[in-house]
């Protein structure tokens, strides 16, 4: 098939794209000024309806299923429910969960985590650990997303921290 190519000079293209009213600018500039003034007046008169959140004072409400910082669910005696099966650390795509298993004194429980560390800087908050866990021991239901610390080491949180996960976002 043969396509007919015609060279359109810049000036021609200009006159083709714009009507006369548009090409004299003024009317369109006034319309533009009207649009910006409308936004300005609306936001002056209804400042409170603006979508911006004044962040430190106001917080966005996330859904209950929001995946925040992890926590370890305790048993009634306060020890973690985790049985150190390594499912979570295996499924973790970011490889951020480090578990060392040890034998539990109670013979009805096979193992317990001697070490359960999460590197929050590596974590991608995908939630696969929650889904993989066979005994609902790790959850991401704290709703904490303001995670800040002044050194890398502090983001490497251990078992005790994850068991007593308080609402304060800082580490």
């Amino acid at each position, binding site marked *: 098939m043969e396509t007919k190519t015609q060279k359109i000079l810049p000036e021609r293209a200009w006159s083709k794209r714009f009507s006369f009213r548009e090409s004299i600018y*003024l009317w369109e*500039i006034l319309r*533009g*000024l009207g*649009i*910006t*003034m409308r*936004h*300005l007046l609306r*936001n*002056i008169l209804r*400042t409170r309806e*603006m*979508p*911006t959140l*004044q962040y430190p*004072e106001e917080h966005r409400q996330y859904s209950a299923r929001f995946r925040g910082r992890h926590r370890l669910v305790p048993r009634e005696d306060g020890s973690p429910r985790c049985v150190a099966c390594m499912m979570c650390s295996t499924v973790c795509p970011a490889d951020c969960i480090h578990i060392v298993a040890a034998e539990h004194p109670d013979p009805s429980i096979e193992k317990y985590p001697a070490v359960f560390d999460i590197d929050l800087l590596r974590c991608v908050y995908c939630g696969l650990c929650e889904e993989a866990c066979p005994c609902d021991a790790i959850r991401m239901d704290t709703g904490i997303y303001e995670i800040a610390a002044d050194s890398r080491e502090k983001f490497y949180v251990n078992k005790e921290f994850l068991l007593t996960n308080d609402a304060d976002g800082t580490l």
Partner: protein
Amino acid sequence: MPLLIETLLKIVFMLLVILGLVPPLIWAERKGSAFIQDRTGPNRAGILGIRLAGLIHPVADVLKLLFKEDIRPANAQPILYSLAPFLLMAVALTTFAVVPFGDYLEVAGQRIPLIVADLNVGILYVLAIASLGTYGIVLGGWSSNNKFSFLGAVRSSAQMISYEISLGLALMGLLLVFSSLRLTDIVAGQGQLIWGFLPKWGVVVQPVGFVLFLTAMFAETNRNPFDLPEGESEIVAGFHLEYSSMKFALFFMAEYANMVVAAMLITTLFFGGYQIPWLPRSVLEAHAGLLLPLLLACTALACGWISQLYFRRAQQERGKFHDARDREPGLLGGLFVVVALAALLALALRPWAIGPVGASVFATLVQVSAFLVKVVFFSWLFIWVRWTLPRFRYDQLMRLGWKVMLPLGLANMAVTALVVALIPGAKG
């Protein structure tokens, strides 16, 4: 000697107006642009919780800039590099000399004209001084020894050459109509009425000239759509790229001072300066006894209403921040109550019985306020346009300057000349 003091006082007044308008304009730029783009804008900086919707931010900015290190690039031209921002600022603060900001003030039987220098070639002076402003930008850009700065300087000079012609031509029609280069004559001429009801403002008799002048003024002040010398998306920051600390602040302030001066020129040349349409000075003086109490009553009512709004907000937002900011609406409401009470107190002083001297002063004050209101509006127009229009491409800028504005300016001048020559009474 009294003339010297008189002139000095007038200079101080104008400088206070121009420099005093700079921080509010910076605030208007930031807050206005935010609201235009559906953002909240600055609202954090405050002194003891008083934030004034972000009006404290310019203060914080200035403090920051004052304490910043003043860096000079190693290969910059030391003298020109330091001179450039001062040059730009000096030019911005020189133009106002020929702008009348009021008719006259009658003090002790003497009539003081409210203009610093009533030159008979006022418009020529404006054009001459305004074009000097380019030197600040060109020298700043060139002496920085930076490629982007240099590009900004080159752009500025090319733009200035292209648009200064249109600027001059736009004023030619005005000169033909009012047949004077003296700005006081032009303002006085704009106090008349055409056919008894239309104010003879420059914008009414020279609409094309006004559009050309406004456009050229935007180009002169390097404001968006014509801020190519700065062009931050293309040449980083253009001519002031290498500047830091207070030298940068001077460039920044000069931009806003230039805006105020441009607004003063637009007001004076095309919007009747201090004239209020249908309210000439004689009427103001004759009815001062009625107008002054009316004005005071309106002020008291308005301030009372605003204070009520603030008090209601103070109640609604009690304990919102848990710090000094919680007190702000209540304090501002109290301030407006004080102003309202002051206005009421002034009403108790029997303002309807002011004598002829008081009436004259009152008329002068009203006219100066009218001038300032117009200036503030046109300063706002510069900001408003900036957040409405995108920047021109360079070839578009040149095409508009040489192929649209120059022929239009010439045609406008020719038509005006014909009308003035053929129709008797068209000349004012």
